[in-house]
């Protein structure tokens, strides 16, 4: 339901503002595009699939573009959040819930019942929706479409069309525009086109989205991929090297310099969708302290799960004989143990004070369990490295985390939980980058002295559910592992209080209350605990 007090008691149109005629026409155009997809889905025989596919995608894009033009270009530049909490779609109203149910159903079918979309099995040709995309797939890579190609195409269209809308919405804000152009570029080029072209060049190279990195692409070190990388020699091994460099060198370096935003809100595909198509839902994330607590446990548990699972999987296909290849089962397992120990000891030695009590307990708990399991394995107490068979763990991770959490809940629940539920509660990549951002990064959101009026716009529009205001009103900088640096808190602040910055490490986290404006003696008293 709309959240506005409705004195008219009208159920049909309680909103203060409807949409304009031009917007209605734009919506109609977009829906015609969707209806074509619907017709294909229900196996209506469409002549000349290429024409209908083009028509569908063009209509959807044009509809979105016209809608955005009318929504934003008719007004002066500035913040455009009027009526966000009155519109059904963006305030968990009926349309919001229906959209959520529809998206969720789509993801369930996509992941678990692709044959319903017309995926041809056992060498049969595609039918239905997937066959509609065959012409485009053939054009790009010379093979028929799969459900993932359909999904990838629609995903890219969504990021491009809604990216355009977002750029208009923030046409006074260059940070927002550049970052949106960046996610549009990486989605179109890196996630969509390049992998198709790579397939054309060498069809044995496994699908590789160059900007994606482990543990987000948790499957990257699966045996079949490693085999394919080795088989395709230079190109495959380069990709493997990139995969390892990404996580151990490139991302720590960039996160140190710019915070995790360089990835989460400038490059990442999940982030790209969240920031564009998901922008209308950012205000729905929970800001409760209880949600924050849940987030800390959940996201780090997923990270531990992904580390354990990947370790177990890699372990299974390595050999025993160091003469054949230097990286044996034992060498690998010991390396993992040593690496985890170094990280753990290093953090506890140098950054202990910056960790909350629950973070310390969690870290110690998980560390002890992992090391104990590895030790038990070496002493012969257990057969499997982590008690459970690697294959079982891998399928469980793929199902529960890879499909259900990141897809069905992460995106399907946009209109209910907000646009970053996966990024906030589940993404193991975000957990790693967040850990680096919190402890080893120049990035912070600076609070401008005493100018905060506690209005709450920053917290409301934080898609990660950070209670930004709770820091700003105390004059504290915001240094939170979950912050993806989208910059919207700074944009919506009516008093110019927040600024995303990369600066010196000293004084990055100022837990003292440093509200300016008061005489300095008083501030000494206030800061005396």
């Amino acid at each position, binding site marked *: 339901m709309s959240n506005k007090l409705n004195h*008219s008691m009208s159920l049909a149109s309680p909103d203060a503002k409807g949409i304009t005629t031009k917007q209605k026409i734009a919506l109609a155009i977009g829906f015609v595009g969707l209806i074509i997809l619907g017709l294909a889905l229900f196996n209506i025989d469409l002549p000349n699939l290429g024409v209908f596919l083009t028509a569908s995608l063009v209509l959807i894009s044009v509809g979105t573009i016209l809608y955005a033009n009318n929504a934003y270009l008719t007004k002066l530049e500035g913040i455009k959040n009027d009526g966000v909490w009155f519109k059904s779609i963006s305030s968990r109203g009926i349309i919001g819930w229906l959209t959520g149910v529809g998206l969720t159903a789509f993801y369930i079918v996509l992941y678990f019942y692709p044959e319903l979309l017309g995926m041809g099995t056992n060498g049969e040709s595609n039918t239905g929706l997937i066959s509609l995309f065959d012409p485009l797939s053939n054009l790009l890579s010379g093979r028929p479409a799969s459900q993932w190609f359909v999904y990838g195409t629609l995903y890219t269209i969504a990021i491009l069309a809604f990216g355009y809308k977002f750029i208009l919405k923030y046409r006074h804000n260059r940070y927002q525009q550049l970052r949106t152009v960046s996610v549009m570029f990486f989605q179109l080029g890196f996630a969509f086109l390049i992998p198709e072209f790579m397939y054309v060049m060498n069809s044995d190279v496994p699908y590789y989205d160059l900007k994606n990195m482990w543990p987000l692409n948790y499957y990257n070190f699966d045996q079949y991929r490693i085999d394919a990388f080795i088989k395709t020699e230079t190109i495959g091994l380069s990709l493997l090297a990139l995969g390892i460099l990404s996580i151990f060198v490139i991302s720590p370096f960039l996160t140190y310099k710019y915070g995790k935003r360089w990835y989460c809100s400038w490059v990442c595909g999940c982030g790209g969708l969240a920031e564009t198509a998901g922008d209308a839902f950012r205000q729905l994330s929970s800001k409760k302290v209880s949600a924050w607590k849940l987030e800390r446990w959940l996201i780090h548990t997923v990270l531990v799960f992904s580390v354990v699972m990947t370790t177990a999987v890699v372990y299974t296909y390595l050999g025993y004989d160091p003469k054949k290849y230097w990286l044996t089962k034992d060498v690998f397992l010991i390396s993992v143990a040593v690496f985890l120990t170094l990280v753990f000891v290093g953090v506890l030695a140098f950054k202990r004070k910056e960790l909350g009590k629950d973070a310390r307990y969690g870290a110690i708990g998980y560390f002890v369990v992992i090391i104990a399991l590895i030790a038990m394995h070496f002493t012969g107490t257990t057969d499997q490295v982590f008690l459970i068979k690697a294959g079982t763990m891998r399928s469980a991770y793929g199902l529960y985390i890879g499909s259900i959490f990141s897809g069905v809940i992460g995106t399907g629940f946009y209109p209910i939980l907000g646009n970053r539920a996966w990024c906030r509660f589940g993404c193991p990549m975000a957990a790693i980058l967040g850990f680096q951002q919190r402890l080893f990064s120049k990035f912070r959101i*600076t609070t*401008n002295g*005493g100018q905060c009026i506690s209005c*709450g*716009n920053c917290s409301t529009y934080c898609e990660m559910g950070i209670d930004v205001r709770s820091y700003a009103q105390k004059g504290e900088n915001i240094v939170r592992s979950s912050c993806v640096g989208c910059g919207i808190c700074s944009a919506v602040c009516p008093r110019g209080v927040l600024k995303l910055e990369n600066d010196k490490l000293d004084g990055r986290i100022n837990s003292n209350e440093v509200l300016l404006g*008061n005489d300095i003696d008083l501030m000494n008293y206030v800061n005396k605990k």
Partner: protein
Amino acid sequence: MEHIVIIGNGISGVTAARHIRKMSDKRITIVSAETNYFFSRTALMYVYMGHMKFEHTQPYENWFWKKNKIELKNGFVSKVNHASNEVIFESGETLPYDKLIIAVGSKPNKFGWPGQDLDGVMGMYHKQDLENLEKYAPNNKVCKRAVVVGGGLIGIELAEMLHSRSIPVTFLVREDSFWNGVLPAGESGMINRHIKNHHIDLRLGVNLKEIIADENGKAKAVVIQETGEVIDCDVVGLTAGVSPNISFLKDSGIELGRGVKVNRFLETNIQNIYAIGDCAEQHEGIGLRRPIEAVWYTGRMMGETVAQTICGNRIEYKPGHWFNSAKFMDIEYQTYGWVFGQPKEYEEQFHWIHEDDTKCITVSYHKDTKQFLGINTFGIRMRHEVFDRWLNEQKDVDFVMFNLAEANFDPEFYNRYETEILSAYHNSKLQTA
């Protein structure tokens, strides 16, 4: 255990309560008739505009108060009896205190206009005003036109609110340019144009004569003093400033002026009774400040100060350099130090305005010593900390102009204007030299 009673749950009272709790175990009760929980008054506008729900304006979750042992009492205080150390509620109930902090804030000014108490006539200060506005101006079918009377910060906010629901607004401003008692002419003129660009019917230099009622006692039109013009409307917003909300203290024995008179320690003439925030009136203004400051930040600072005094560390209220901020529709405004709308006799001002007419700055300095006195900035964010430091160090205006980039607080990748500003500054000096 000593019992601290605070009347008013706005920023002043709540800040006082939080700091007292940080420093002591005293029993604390906050009394309010307006809402159960603290909310940000400055954010009320965003609730009507649909940017936020009311709950978003509450900086603390509801469990916060119990966890920090701050008792909340919903009730309207009708009297304070300092002889018996108790406050008396409208219901007849009483609440004893050991120390009392009066932090009751303001109420909208009404200047005895005929029709000022009709239905559909309202200020924009309390949560109840918001509910009232929602009732009389839910959309542009129920409210075909609204008239806002009074060209200050609340007036322009109310105009923006109504405009967000596509309700036509006529904005009556007594002065011949918007808020020019505070803003220098160049800035005030830019805001005039910005208001008109939003298709708000801005009327400068006019006064309200009366509000006309329909047969049901609801406002249906206003009459303009100067021209006698009648403007049909469904809602009239009265936003001609605010004054301390202290009528309930009339015969309490507490010394009153326009507000509750306090000394520099925020103490009233009665022992153990203090006043802070909008309702407190200094015997004499501090520095260039006014005796009554109805500003969010000063309320917060007074809350911090009085908490020290109550916890045994009696200190003066010593505000630092003046600062403030606001947003005029789409244009943000910040000020540091003093820039006067009508320059003082010792004051020289440098004004720069960008060609797009949405950004400008005014730098004020002493015409003899060249000491930097303050800056107003529109559409460009600047750093509080930097200006606070420059004011402390009494930098001269040349230093400030040359180092303006250091103070920039705009988001990354924004266009920068320091070079343009500096060359304009040089040109202005050449002309005056």
